[in-house]
């Protein structure tokens, strides 16, 4: 178990800078998720921590020791790859015990550790099988078993669930989280899937174009995104963004969108009358109603999922997604009124993307 420190970490591939001076800390035992769209540098950052990519600038430290010039094998880390990377010619037990074999560990100790890991992961019946005889989920568990047997300072996961089908992904997500709660090993987990990030992380690092957009707990990112990118990246369905002009009167504020719709705001918003803004409202913060400040909308599509109903509606020129609990009998073409939960509304500067305090 160990802390991990990134200090002004940079990566250059043949003259192209892909990581631009990243700094953040991971506390001992923390489950940190690096998330971002593909090409944002999250995997590169993880591979630099693993020692699979050289660090072009800055330092990375594990457990207080700078590891820039330390070989992968001496960093005391274990990594789970997206492709599992199991040795096809070895049995499950040999795959899991390989690292200890290389360290010339006692055979008894190796067998004990493998058996222990197999018990945690329910792999007991498969120890003598070869990877090709296992399903995708079992292979992924073997890859995790290989990491557990190491008892490393840090676990690294590189998009470990991307090759699994949707149902298995949800199951494995819970397994990995349970594993972390049990072992409490510092974990760095890379994914492009914000749902994985939200459900698993203690803290999320949102990356974009080789830079950190925001670091925080899942709910911090959800409730108080620093900028438009984070606001739209975190949360599913994504936040609705309406572009318009801020208007205020003596005791009220609203955003006037193209097409004349008026989106209500708390009067405390720190922006002046006439300022161009991007108005952000999450699909769940909208409800069917008819209050004084309700926004009229035309229903385009109704998607019932049982417990919730997702509505695609048009307000002025903008399409808006609404998620409501329960069911509705409205249909396409009908006009409804949307109540806005003003406390959860966010406003951004459309030029810089930065959040404006409300």
């Amino acid at each position, binding site marked *: 178990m160990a802390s991990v420190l990134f200090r002004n970490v940079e990566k250059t591939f043949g003259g192209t800078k892909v990581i631009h001076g990243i700094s953040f800390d991971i506390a001992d035992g923390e489950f940190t998720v690096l998330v971002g769209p593909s090409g944002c540098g999250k995997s590169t950052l993880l591979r630099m921590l693993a020692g699979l990519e050289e660090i072009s600038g800055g330092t990375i430290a594990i457990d207080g020791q700078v590891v820039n010039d330390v070989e*992968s094998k001496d960093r005391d880390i274990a990594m789970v790859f997206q492709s599992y990377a199991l040795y096809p010619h070895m049995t499950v037990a040999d795959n899991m015990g*390989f690292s200890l074999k290389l*360290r010339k560990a006692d055979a008894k100790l190796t067998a004990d550790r493998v058996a222990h890991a197999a018990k945690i992961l329910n792999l007991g019946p498969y120890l003598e099988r070869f990877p090709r005889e296992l399903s995708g989920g079992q292979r992924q568990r073997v890859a995790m078993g290989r990491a557990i047997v190491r008892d490393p300072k840090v676990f690294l996961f590189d998009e470990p669930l991307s090759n699994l089908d949707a149902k298995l992904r949800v199951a494995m997500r819970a397994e990995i989280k349970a594993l972390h709660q049990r072992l409490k090993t510092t974990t760095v987990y890379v994914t492009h899937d914000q749902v994985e990030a939200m459900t698993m992380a203690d803290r999320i690092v949102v990356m974009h174009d080789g830079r950190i957009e925001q670091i925080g707990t899942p709910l911090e990112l959800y409730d108080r995104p620093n900028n438009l990118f984070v606001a739209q990246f975190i949360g599913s369905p994504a936040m609705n963004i309406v572009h318009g002009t801020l208007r205020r009167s003596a005791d009220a504020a609203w955003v006037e969108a193209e097409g004349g719709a008026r989106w209500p705001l708390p009067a405390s918003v720190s922006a002046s009358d006439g300022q161009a803004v991007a108005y952000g409202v999450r699909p769940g913060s909208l409800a069917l109603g008819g209050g004084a400040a309700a926004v009229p909308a035309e229903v385009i599509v109704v998607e019932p999922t049982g417990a919730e109903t997702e509505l695609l509606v048009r307000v002025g020129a903008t399409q808006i997604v609404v998620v409501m609990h329960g069911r509705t009998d409205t249909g396409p073409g009908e006009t409804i009124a949307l109540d806005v939960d003003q406390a959860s509304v966010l406003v951004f500067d459309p030029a810089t993307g930065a959040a404006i305090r409300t």
Partner: protein
Amino acid sequence: MSAWTLRKVSGEAKLLLIGIPVAIWTLLPIYHLVLFALSPREQAVSGKLWPDHPTLHNFSMVFHEQHHYLSHFWLQLWNSLLIAVAVGAITLFVATSAAFAISRLRVRGGRAIMNLALFTYFIPAAFLAVPMYKTMSSYGLLNSQWSLILAMVTIATPYSIWVLKQASDKLPLELDEAARIDGASPLQLFRLVYLPLMTPSLVAVGTYALLLAWNEYLYAFLLLSDDRSTTLGVALGSFLSADDSPWELLMATGLLYALPPAAIYYAFKRYMVSGLTAGAVKS
């Protein structure tokens, strides 16, 4: 019978129409080889489809070295075997190490060296025979079996490296990375992960080099002139130096000489096909 099966049958018929003549064409010389080998001396060129009194006498003469052309039969067979196995083993060692370095360790300039080695195939091996003779002579290796072994390794290696490199490239790079994180040194990676996964290609390449050396005539003839050090292939060639050559003995020896390659080929056929075509198509 549906149209589909009809089409399938007619397709197979067409293949047979081509295949049968090709098979006959290929087997005809071998048939004559067998015919000669089983005929008594006086009937060897009688032109019959099958000898009146087939005999194994020719083989017995070969085994007992009862002709002056065959006075070192067993020794020369042993030489052929020794040289072929040595060429196979050394080629494998060199080519596997090179392919690992080029494909997995990504040694700088590795690809350029491989292409340079392949470039040597632009010059036919026969043209290189004399320069090779001169080189071996200046190292004092003439008449030493090492000269032939080294020459054959030189000829077999570029292609072997290329085949093995193509096969190596198909192994996922994550395996190497996982092994590195697991604590493997490059040598451990080579021994514990790379070699086991490359086995089919290794068998194919080893067999290729072995058969290349076994069947070599020109270089063996040039580099090994002593009857006691040369290969059986060269000894077979010397039958042709006389006017009244014992054809039936030449054919019997030739048949024996063809058996080990055939056995090796059938034993490793499975690997040959998958190994030599590996890398040919993008999977």
